[in-house]
């Protein structure tokens, strides 16, 4: 069992309550089984053979948004998200994953995206060159941006053109495989990652930029572990690349955006890769934009269930509750514009009460200011 590699975490978490007040799901559901302690108790029983996976224990293992707040808070270096990922892989190996999980896997394998939408329609709403060679930058769009937030991709393309960057989309782009990995399908994730890495290498681009933090983490964290070789290509999130372009004066925000804005830090961009300053530096260049911090920010920012875009698909009601909590925090902090750096978060926050703060991706906001 892969959870055996997480024995230290499971042993510690099963009797520890010290992160329960930050556990994203635990706080909104109030359920003990949703916290790292509850998960630790269950996984300990599985590990020791005192319990077998049943459908409802399996369901509990999939009720975690992998936000990493527990890990950020822990003074004992425990890694509950890694334990959950290991448990899911064990469950898949036993063939006991829930039907909804299996459906997402089938979608990914058949269409290259978790929604099961036609692969041919991936870039239907995006106006940008595909398969251009040579290109300075390969823009990896990602599933959530391509299918649900294409305006982010269009805004990014507009900014790249304004900066004079010769870029291309990847013809035949598909998921990084991260959702497969997060659901426990490690073999399928490896195969998909290796296939995508090969496609990326074939472009000859030296820089890959993505507007999706889950994709960034896939390339930087998962791919080396999965043997998916990107050939030394530089991988950046759009926030990093735009920050660079603004610093180099290749992009100049001119049009005022008179608003009180806050950055909503996320799991991968923030907690994992510590890219806290880049989006803030970009926003500071936007005329008349007032940048303020919410109380919960940077590594302790509230989570909206971003990782791999799965919570929204598996537990839409929980996802809505997370979004409401994030927006409530923004309202309490007097935020007028909540700036996301993630298409999943952008989708999750749309149309959820309390309405009030405008939600905009960093790329959209900058494009508005660059004009």
């Amino acid at each position, binding site marked *: 069992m892969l959870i055996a590699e997480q024995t230290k975490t499971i042993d510690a978490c099963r009797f520890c309550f010290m992160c329960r007040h930050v556990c994203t799901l635990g706080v909104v559901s109030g359920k003990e089984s949703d*916290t790292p302690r509850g998960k630790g*108790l269950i996984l300990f029983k599985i590990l020791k053979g005192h319990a077998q996976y049943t459908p409802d224990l399996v369901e509990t293992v999939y009720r975690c948004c992998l936000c990493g707040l527990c890990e950020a808070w822990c003074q004992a270096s425990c890694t509950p998200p890694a334990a959950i990922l290991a448990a899911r892989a064990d469950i898949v190996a036993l063939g006991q994953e829930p039907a909804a999980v299996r459906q997402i896997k089938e979608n990914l394998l058949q269409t290259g995206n978790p929604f099961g939408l036609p692969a041919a329609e991936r870039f239907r709403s995006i106006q940008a060159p595909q398969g251009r060679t040579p290109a300075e930058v390969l823009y990896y769009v990602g599933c959530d941006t391509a299918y649900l937030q294409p305006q982010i991709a269009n805004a990014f393309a507009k900014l790249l053109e304004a900066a004079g960057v010769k870029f291309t989309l990847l013809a035949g782009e598909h998921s990084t495989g991260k959702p497969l990995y997060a659901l426990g399908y490690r073999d399928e994730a490896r195969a998909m990652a290796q296939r995508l890495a090969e496609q990326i290498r074939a472009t000859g681009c030296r820089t890959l930029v993505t507007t999706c933090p889950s994709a960034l983490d896939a390339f930087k964290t998962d791919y080396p572990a999965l043997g998916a070789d990107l050939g030394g290509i530089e991988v950046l999130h759009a926030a990093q690349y735009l920050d660079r372009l603004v610093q180099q004066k290749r992009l100049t925000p001119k049009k005022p955006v008179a608003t009180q804005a806050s950055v909503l830090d996320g799991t991968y961009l923030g907690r994992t890769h510590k890219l806290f300053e880049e989006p803030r530096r970009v926003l500071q260049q936007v005329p008349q934009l007032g940048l303020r911090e919410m109380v919960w920010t940077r590594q302790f920012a509230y989570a909206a269930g971003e990782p791999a875009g799965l919570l929204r698909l598996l537990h839409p009601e929980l996802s809505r509750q997370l979004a409401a909590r994030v927006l409530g925090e923004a309202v309490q902090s007097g935020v007028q514009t909540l700036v996301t750096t993630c298409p999943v978060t952008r989708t999750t926050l749309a149309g959820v009460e309390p309405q009030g703060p405008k939600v905009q991706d960093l790329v959209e906001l900058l494009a508005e200011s660059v004009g």
Partner: protein
Amino acid sequence: MRVSSDSYLHEMFFTELADVVGAENVSTSQSDKIAYSCDYYWIPEMWIDRGCRNPQPDVVVHARTTEEVSRLCRIAQNYKVPLTVWGGGSGSQGGALPMYGGIVLDTKKLNRVIEIDKKSLTVTAETGIIMQHLEWALEREGYSTMHIPASIGCATLGGFLAHRGTGVLSTKYGKIEDMVMSVEAVLPDGTIINTLPVPRHASGPDLTQLLLGSEGTLGVMTKATLKIHPIPEVRRFHAFVFRDLAAGLEAGRQLMVQRLRPSVIRLYDEAETRRLVRRVLGVDKEGAYLVFGFDGDAEMVDLEMARALKICRSYPHEDLGTKLGEDWWEHRYDFFFPNHMFHLPQAFGTLDTVATFANIENVYRAMKRVVETQFPEARYIGHFSHWYEWGCMLYARFIVDHPPEDPHLAAQLYNRIWDACLRAAMAEGGLLNEHHGIGLKLGRLMRELYGPAYGLLEKIKQAVDPNNLMNPGKMGFQSYR
């Protein structure tokens, strides 16, 4: 009624529960049964570690309003089903364990902050709110309850009320029972009551104080109004190492009897200074580590700090200055993370007790003697962390590094150590407990503690909960049948 029977009566029961709180707030899942079968009490932890089956709830219900709690209580009465209230479940006394199955009522969705009264400096909140969330809400407005325990992130407001909890700043701001203005509660028959709105009066006995510490055996507290305080201008700390515990105790006593108002005094015995303080704070000293702090207006704090330093320097000491005091404040929660806490297979128990200054050192030494002479497999450490004008609290602990593998033998040894230590403490004027409560762990000793006065508590319990359905098996009250 046994809820899990195959009679269709239990379907009627579940239908009624779902009608009150919605089906999404009623769970019979195995996941929840496991998660609600263990609190922070060592025996259920050990039981799980050894692969034994803990008592589990038949059903876990989340209530969202006081009215829902009231209706749930009526259902419990109608069906004669035990009802155990669960806030954070982080208590160390087994207080939230559903010993006889039935309903576990999780209060964490009763989590609204209802009103901050900035004129009277009070806050009213529902009791299922996690204490840290209440504190964060108050901090945004510039206030604090000053109830800052290590379990602030783990436990709910209701949990602290139910077992008379305390926080690290209790020496100035009091325990939770000193902070409460009034409570709303649901009695076992579903009646919703409010205690009088202010805590000082001459209008009969104090019902607020009767409910505090009742551990869910007399009803469910659903709202509470607490005093709040402005965030202090400054908070300053200072640390010393005294030659021995006796010198430290006397210095601490002087701080109190000279009527200074430190927010915190914490004195570690030689063994805990050597082990925990060194490990967490890196203070590598022999003797008894003492840290104290003052908070409030800077000028007042400076005055009190100067007086306190003068007192401490009159005993054999090494002055560690302010930094090691501030380090303690910064790292005060670190002691409770798994890398610093005692953990299985070790057996460990917190023998927290309280006594007057005249008795407290004898209490400490009596329990130490019991552990060292009767239980060679155990060690004993302690610190004194909540101080009053008349005495202080002792947070003593015993640790057995290698308890028996057999869970029954381990539980028997564990209980024997508790009984022997607490009887020794009571003989010297100590109480059964100071801020963790009684729960399942210590109920059997309540009659010894109270003497004939326990009969009065029993009569109150019988009058309020004649079917003994509220948190049965706790506080020493007659068991559920």
